[in-house]
């Protein structure tokens, strides 16, 4: 895993190596092992290397022998061994053992279609000197980031936005509509980011820059099951197929010239991943996890149980409320977008533990909830639809009480309030976003905190309407359950989990995460899987649990699902809270940035100080304001 950056002079003057050096210097945390800058006419490519495969000869930027093609590459091509054999069979000669060189020759052989041959997690840029073409591409699921912008005379790209901001010509401005999206969906909708004129290559997309024109194309999207679509496998056959896919996805993700560890959260997904790693690796595996001082978030007992069952050498980092407050500014420097939860922080501490333990690579269970029916939001939508079929029923809405058993404040709510909040109207039933409307409507209430001026800049922009225009043409022919999964997989997964909580937190300490559930073969399997095999009645991840029998301890298979969460705003309100909290939430600092209304923020802060803030909404509001203020302090007000 690495950091990449580069630029193309649109007037075709010579690229400036010092500018590239400045850009890549901001990404050293992604690649501390080596670095390189290469200028080829109007193009400059830069690379910060985290050496994982071919430690001796995989330096970048790399070129073909004739210097026709140059590449800077972040990530892994897990099937590079098979692709290499294929290309050798076609007459290509290799000077290294790296997957980087495989990309170069695959591009020579297949052109831009090469991306369809890769099974990996990667972002790269290739400069074709003959064609004078710059080609950028990002992996299917959006594991690795790739941002770009354009100035009056240059096209610039990088793994992280801070590398783009290293160029003086790039303006630093918050995008009100990007903020509107964050404070609705928790994420921005690609290619938008929270900064004006800074874009991201959407997952599964490539960009071609030639003759000053940018052409974007989607090279991959999963084909989703449709209503009434027949499937010819038995449950047992489907479970076996899933297990075999996961075994192979894990096998190729162990290709590394450095030791590989695993995250072990105490849930089904990471326990299975760790078990599969152990079966392939054969040696005693190192596993890592987070423990919380606050017991309502802590899953240590399950982690220990899984570790004992699998025989791993286990290490744990303990996370206190004070830890979260202390490192939050550093975390936001890496997320490069506001967050509404502090959950990225413990992931930041975990990657530090991994790195200090001498590991660069970890496998995790990320992605299973999205593609195999694991999230409570799917359960919530199912209950609401069930209730809507008989709105007069007295007992159907009582099922609402079965949701979110880990949220104490939720469970204390009178049923009447839950019924009103989760009420289903005919308009809701007809909405493409039925599953997510309660969450988005709750989050959108945070926009009450925006200042009148900032609201004016947002204008009549309709984020939900904007998203609706991006839906696939045949979306309405999909099962409702699948529609909800699509929204999670397409937007929330890459926009938050794989970025703010994934890549950015791991790479902050030069650690590479690998995700067997995000192998495109598993993604395609999940997209076509009948929904009744994902959630049977209200039993989430039904097929996965069946596939795990005998591999994952029965106690973990049978436990109540507890999503990963971390203590939120309470971390920032105690006697030992860092000074920045008070400073950034002061009316003066709020007014200075102009994004939020100072009296509204003061009312919120006073509520926390008085110990009267208890709701999820207040927690999200406080974390959202504080992270936005940190973002502005880090990137705008310099």
């Amino acid at each position, binding site marked *: 895993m690495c950091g990449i950056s580069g630029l193309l002079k649109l007037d075709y003057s010579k690229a400036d190596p010092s500018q590239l050096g400045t850009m890549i210097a901001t990404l050293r945390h992604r690649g501390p092992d080596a670095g390189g800058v290469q200028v080829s006419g109007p193009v400059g490519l830069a690379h910060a290397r985290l050496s994982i495969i071919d430690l001796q000869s995989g330096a970048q930027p790399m070129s073909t022998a004739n210097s026709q093609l140059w590449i800077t590459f972040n990530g892994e091509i897990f099937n590079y061994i098979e692709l290499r054999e294929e290309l050798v069979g076609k007459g290509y000669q290799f000077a290294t053992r790296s997957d980087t060189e495989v990309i170069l020759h695959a591009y020579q052989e297949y052109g831009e279609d090469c991306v369809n041959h890769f099974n990996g997690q990667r972002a790269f840029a290739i400069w074709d000197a003959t064609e004078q073409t710059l080609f950028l591409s990002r992996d299917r699921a959006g594991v690795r980031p790739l941002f770009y912008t354009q100035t009056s005379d240059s096209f610039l790209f990088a793994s992280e936005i801070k590398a783009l901001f290293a160029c003086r010509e790039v303006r630093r401005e918050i995008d009100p509509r990007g903020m509107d999206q964050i404070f609705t969906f928790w994420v921005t909708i690609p290619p938008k980011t929270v900064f004006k004129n800074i874009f991201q290559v959407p997952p599964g997309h490539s960009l071609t820059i030639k003759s000053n024109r940018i052409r974007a194309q989607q090279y991959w999207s999963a084909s989703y099951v449709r209503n009434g679509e027949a499937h010819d496998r038995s449950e047992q056959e489907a479970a076996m197929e899933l297990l075999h896919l996961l075994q192979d996805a894990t096998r190729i993700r162990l290709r590394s010239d450095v030791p590989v560890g695993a995250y072990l959260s105490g849930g089904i997904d990471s326990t299975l991943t760790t078990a599969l790693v152990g079966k392939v690796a054969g040696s005693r595996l190192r596993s890592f996890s987070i423990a919380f001082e606050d017991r309502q978030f802590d899953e240590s007992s399950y982690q220990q149980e899984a570790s004992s069952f699998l025989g791993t050498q286990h290490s744990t980092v303990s996370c206190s409320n004070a830890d979260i407050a202390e490192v939050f500014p550093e975390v936001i420097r890496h997320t490069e977008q506001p967050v509404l939860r502090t959950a990225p922080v413990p992931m930041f501490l975990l990657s530090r533990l991994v790195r200090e333990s001498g590991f660069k690579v970890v496998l995790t269970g990320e992605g299973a909830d999205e593609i195999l029916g694991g999230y409570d939001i799917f359960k919530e939508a199912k209950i609401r639809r069930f209730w809507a079929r008989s709105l007069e029923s007295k007992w159907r809405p009582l099922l609402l009480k079965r949701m979110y058993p880990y949220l104490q404040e939720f469970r204390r*709510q009178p049923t009447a*309030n839950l019924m*009103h909040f989760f009420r289903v109207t005919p308009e809701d039933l007809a909405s493409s976003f039925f599953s997510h409307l309660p969450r988005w409507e709750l989050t959108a209430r945070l926009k009450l905190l925006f200042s009148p001026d900032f609201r004016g800049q947002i204008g009549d922009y309709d984020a939900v309407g904007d998203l609706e225009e991006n839906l696939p043409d045949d979306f309405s022919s999909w099962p409702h359950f699948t529609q909800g999964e699509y929204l999670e997989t397409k937007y929330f997964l890459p926009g938050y989990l794989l970025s703010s909580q994934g890549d950015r937190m791991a790479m902050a300490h030069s650690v590479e995460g690998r995700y067997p559930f995000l192998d495109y073969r598993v993604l395609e399997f999940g997209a076509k899987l009948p929904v009744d095999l994902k959630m049977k009645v209200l039993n989430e991840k039904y097929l996965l649990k069946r596939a795990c029998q005998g591999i994952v301890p029965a106690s973990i298979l049978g436990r109540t699902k507890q999503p990963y969460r971390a203590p939120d705003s309470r971390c920032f309100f105690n006697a030992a809270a860092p000074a920045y909290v008070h400073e950034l939430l002061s009316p003066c600092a709020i007014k200075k940035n102009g994004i939020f209304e100072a009296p509204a923020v003061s009312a919120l802060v006073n509520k926390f100080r008085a110990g*009267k803030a208890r709701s999820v909404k207040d927690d999200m509001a406080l974390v959202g304001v504080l992270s936005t203020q940190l973002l502005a302090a880090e990137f705008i007000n310099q």
Partner: protein
Amino acid sequence: MQTIDIEREIRSFLIDNFLFGRTEEWRDHVSLLGNVIDSTGAIELVTFLQDRFAITVEDTEVVPENFDTLENVVAYVERKLPSKV
């Protein structure tokens, strides 16, 4: 305590706690449950009523007839108060 005072105090609480103090966002006669009070907010209102007016609110009393509008909440509190002062 006069009805108008009870109403003012409850409205002020609702605006401060659920609308971040933005008075201009308040709409008279709208349904509170679902519109103003969020999924985990009813307990906040109940706690406030119990603390401020020294009444006991039973879970079974948190129903639309008592909590769906500001007017309903005020009427409910008045019924629960031992006597008007």
